[in-house]
């Protein structure tokens, strides 16, 4: 939003307009996000099936496209079991915490540039903060409570071990995750996601896009992806819910909608990670623009979505290819490999930027 000077007489009007636009944007983004979450489950099932010589969901709708709907209905109507020995307030709060923090980080993620719809114009983003990246990090760092409290309040040893593993793992990998982003921040000179994307416009030698991944941050990209996989508890880092050891880890005791909330949180986190990776390393909505004006207008969003889809696909691909780490190996990898590499990347980027300046 461009800067406005608030005056007392039109303050009410502008607040109303601001509220309406914000609510519409929020509703649209949340709607899209939840649909994306539902369909990433479908995508996961379909891709994994094809990796494994299976068909995946085919019964509900064409290509099983209505499967997420059926799953949702199933989750709602399933009996919601609450074991007698759980610590009830936290047991109920944990999935809510998980899903709320997973979804709310989408608020600062930009999907595209400024658009004009009739007389109104807006950024394709719920809100643009100049510390957007930090907000995302802060919100995702709060997500660990959902997992940890679920494990603790279930009053189950498997769940407790899962919760402990999850919290230790997420706190550890957050360090290298945060450090891997510092290089990008140094290059862009801003913490605003919009500025970071804007800094990646243009091309080298006419054909290589000036995305950060091609612009000295390749190492950071891989560190980010690995840490992000660990942060979202996905294979090969899915130890908190390693079904072969801990049955289902922190959500062993959950059923019905509460279980579905953890599921939603996991996939929403994946979407967030994919969005951040796209924005920070793959140039966000930048990409070749062509075609008729209407197409040109929505082209950036399409590019953004394609890149996010690529990351979601990568997630699924990795999950169904790799085995799982062991817990000590995971910790050693995070602290002894990723962290030094991330620090080295920060130092290197800082030196290069200082030398160029």
């Amino acid at each position, binding site marked *: 939003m461009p800067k406005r000077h608030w005056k007392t007489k039109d303050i009410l009007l502008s607040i109303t307009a601001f509220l309406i636009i914000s609510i519409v944007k929020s509703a649209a983004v949340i709607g899209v996000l939840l649909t994306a979450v539902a369909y990433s489950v479908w995508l996961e099932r379909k891709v994994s099936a094809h990796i494994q010589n299976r068909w995946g969901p085919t019964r509900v709708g064409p290509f099983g496209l209505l499967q997420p709907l059926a799953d949702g209905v199933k989750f709602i109507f399933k009996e919601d079991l609450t074991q007698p020995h759980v610590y009830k307030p*936290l047991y109920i709060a944990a999935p809510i915490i998980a899903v709320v923090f997973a979804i709310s980080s989408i608020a600062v993620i930009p999907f595209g540039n400024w658009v004009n719809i009739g007389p109104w114009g807006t950024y394709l983003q719920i809100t643009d903060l100049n*510390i957007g990246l930090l907000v995302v990090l802060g919100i995702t760092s709060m997500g660990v*409570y959902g997992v940890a409290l679920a494990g603790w309040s279930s009053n189950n040893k498997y769940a407790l071990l899962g919760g402990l593993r999850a*919290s230790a793992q997420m706190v550890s990998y957050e360090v290298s995750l945060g450090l891997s982003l510092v290089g990008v921040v140094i290059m862009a000179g801003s913490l605003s996601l919009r500025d970071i994307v804007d800094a990646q416009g243009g091309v080298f030698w006419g054909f290589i896009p000036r995305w950060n991944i091609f612009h000295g941050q390749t190492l950071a990209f891989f560190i980010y992806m690995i840490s992000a996989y660990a942060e979202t508890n996905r294979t090969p880092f899915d130890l908190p819910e390693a079904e072969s050891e801990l049955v289902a880890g922190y959500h062993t005791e959950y059923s019905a909608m509460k279980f579905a909330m953890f599921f939603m949180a996991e996939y929403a986190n994946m979407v967030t990670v994919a969005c951040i990776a796209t924005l920070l390393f793959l140039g966000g909505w930048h990409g070749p623009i062509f075609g008729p004006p209407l197409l040109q207008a929505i082209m950036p969003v399409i590019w953004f979505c394609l890149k996010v889809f690529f990351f979601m696909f990568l997630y699924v691909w990795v999950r169904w290819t790799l085995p799982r780490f062991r817990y000590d190996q995971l910790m050693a990898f995070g602290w002894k490999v990723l962290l030094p590499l991330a620090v080295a990347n920060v130092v290197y980027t800082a030196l290069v930027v200082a030398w160029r300046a």
Partner: protein
Amino acid sequence: MLHLILFLFFGLICVAGAINLLAQSHPINSALSLIVVMASLAALYLLLGAEFVAAVQVIVYAGAIMVLFVITIMLLNAGAEERTRGSRIATLIGVPGVVAGGTLVAWTLLRRPDRPAFAIGALKGGPSDIARLLFHDYLLPFEVTSVLILIAIMGAVVLASRPEAVARGPRKDGE
């Protein structure tokens, strides 16, 4: 106006969280109310224009330090607090004393309020300004704290790791 509403809102949450911390007997509830306090403090920092501090408050305090507390509580499987007779003097003299002192300070402050009304975002606490201060004017303290935290990490590792002899103590033999 908006500022006042938001201040009251988050301030009340803050106070409620702090009092809940005292009232709860189970440490995990106390920890969660402390997280609430910290999150609403972050909101207050935003009101004061210190947005970077607010973000760091959430990431470091709520996201890392309190996770440590929660992990410790989970790890030690701490149950509800048992009520024991603590130091009588602390309770009998300390509590009224502290409350009285606090009231006195509050009364002093509110009696003659200076009214430097500042609006939302009046002060730029952006990352670049903070960075300039931190890496220019306060470089030495910054480096000293980095050494401090390194030492703290090493100390924590040494303290928390158990000697091998304890873990594999001798036991009766035979199945």
